[in-house]
């Protein structure tokens, strides 16, 4: 039984991702693109060389890991944070703002300070939905979603206003000083953020598995009423707390992206990491180890999307088709397997 469920735990996500790619191929054929050329370009862009893998796939896996971890944390506590995209941008804005001021500091201090500010900014941005939920019962799904659009507009305002580069020509910020740029693995663009993201996943694994907080989260997510009545847990507080940490992780991802990849703030910094991370989290089925694997797979998809555009002329948003179908396949598989369980237990 246990071995059975473990096989299913690996097989189902793989099959779901396979379904996503298959539908993408069919979709390419139907809409007049060459599926072999597009998927080939995608694969080469993601896994074609050590450089492609380290500097394309892994670099994109970093924000996905962090945001997906946050989404999972919320999911475990029964809250849905669909605002990862907005929190990512707030982290990026805050990191750019503070990073530009820290040029004279030594990197060992400047970088942690910058990332801490990004972390706090993400939490502050999601504090609004958390408060609205606690105080007024506003669905966090709607409020986090709406704040994504406000955050994107805020970036556009920043790069044409207070944070615009000193020439005042381009809609972007000045380049960050080298002191706050994350160290890079020689010969690649892979930066220290990967270590940070992996550490967060390990930490989450430990917290979920071995601590009281993890236990409480599980209790609240599984059955809020039972947790409140029998466990004496303050369900709303735990939900709001999970939401805060979840936003903080997305903010951290934004700070890491600015400090490790773009070195500047500009609009469209994120190719939709906040939404892709939801697919990452669902495919990983709430397991931190699973998030590492699934973030690398979706990082490959994102890296491949760029190559697909260059080599096959396919707009990069097309990978959303694969992501959406993967999510739907995971949902369907879960629905089918839970129904089968119902039948067996009945």
């Amino acid at each position, binding site marked *: 039984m246990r071995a059975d469920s473990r096989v299913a735990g690996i097989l189902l996500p793989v099959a779901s991702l396979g379904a996503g790619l298959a539908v993408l191929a069919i979709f390419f054929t139907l809409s007049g693109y060459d599926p072999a050329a597009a998927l080939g370009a995608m694969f080469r862009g993601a896994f074609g060389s050590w450089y492609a893998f380290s500097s394309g796939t892994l670099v994109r896996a970093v924000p996905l890991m962090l945001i997906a971890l946050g989404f999972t944390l919320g999911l475990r506590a029964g809250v849905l944070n669909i605002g990862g995209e907005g929190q990512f941008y707030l982290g990026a804005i805050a990191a750019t703002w503070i990073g530009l001021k820290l040029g004279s500091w030594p990197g060992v201090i400047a970088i942690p300070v910058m990332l801490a500010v990004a972390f706090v900014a993400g939490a502050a941005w999601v504090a609004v939905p958390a408060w609205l939920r606690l105080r007024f019962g506003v669905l966090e799904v*709607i409020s986090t979603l709406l*704040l994504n659009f406000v955050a994107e507009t805020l970036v*556009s305002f920043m790069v044409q206003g207070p944070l615009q580069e000193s020439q005042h020509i381009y809609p972007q910020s000045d380049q960050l000083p080298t002191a706050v740029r994350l160290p890079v693995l020689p010969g690649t663009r892979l930066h220290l953020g990967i270590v940070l993201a992996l550490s967060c996943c390990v930490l989450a694994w430990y917290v979920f598995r071995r601590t009281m907080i993890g236990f409480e989260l599980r209790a609240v997510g599984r059955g809020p009423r039972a947790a409140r009545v029998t466990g004496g847990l303050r369900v709303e507080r735990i939900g709001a707390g999970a939401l805060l940490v979840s936003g903080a992780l997305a903010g951290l991802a934004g700070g890491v992206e600015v400090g490790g990849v773009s070195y500047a703030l500009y609009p469209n910094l994120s190719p939709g990491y906040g939404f892709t991370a939801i697919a990452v989290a669902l495919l990983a089925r709430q397991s931190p180890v699973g998030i590492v694997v699934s973030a690398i797979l979706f990082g490959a998809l994102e890296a491949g999307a760029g190559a697909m555009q260059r080599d096959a002329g396919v707009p990069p948003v097309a990978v*959303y*088709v694969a992501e959406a179908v993967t999510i739907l396949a995971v949902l369907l598989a879960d629905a089918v397997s839970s129904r089968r369980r119902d039948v067996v237990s009945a």
Partner: protein
Amino acid sequence: MIDAGIIDGFLGAAVRIATPLLLAALGEMLSERGGVINLGVEGAMLTGALAAAIGASAGGTWTGLAASVVAGLLLASIFALAAIGARADQIIAGTATTLLAVGVTGAVYQAAFGSAGAGLTLPTLGASPIPGLAKVPLAGPALFNQPVTTYIALLAVPLCWWFLFRTRTGLALRAVGESPEHARAAGVPVRRLQFAATLTGGAFAGLAGGTLVLAQVGTFAERMTAGRGFIAIAIVVLGRWHPVGVLAASLLFGAATALQFVFQAMGLAVPYQLFLMLPYVLTLLLLAGLVGGVKAPAALGRPAD
């Protein structure tokens, strides 16, 4: 000074901007009354918008509108199969449906109209003034000198009201949204009704996208709905799941968005991003201020067996 021209322009713009929101929100209201919250409404709108662009450039505005309805229906049926058919989590299924729409429309748009960024000019729906009424001061031009889709949206308000509160099917649908178990015990075909309401909602959302393209913007762009579908969901909450409330909330949003034209006309130098944020921020403020004490359909978001 604010002259009458500015006010007429403001009111007209408010109603024009409110129209797609009203259509999408009425559709979402129907499915939420049946207990189904559909975040795919954003995707259905976007798909409807692209279908309208393709349809209109091939066969004129009416073909475009028809295509947008069909596209919205199709997208909603994907959501419905997952969320109602397979009882998957509605929020996540809706998010996935919207993602799917972003991907599909982005790629199809480029395949159909060439590389993104190329300007696209489409036949649009001009204003069809209603004789007599259009001449009434203030409300006349704003309400009765509009494209035909605005009249469709305004007519849909009493129709939805009549359906929900004066027909047996409407009563059954509301029962499903409050308690699917009791509704089933009373012999109501729960999931069939949810399917029907969600698909109708999708058709409304598709038409909303078509309206956006053919009566408002005149072109298509990647992700052009920019969260209007999500605002429509908030409008349903603000309108307290009632057609008249939804109408009022939509008009309020139209007005908030149209304010920028007034300020521009008055020559106020405020960063334009402030106006872009306004509708979203206003939604949040209103949600906080008005939601307390309002009851959503009791079974909203809970899959029915």
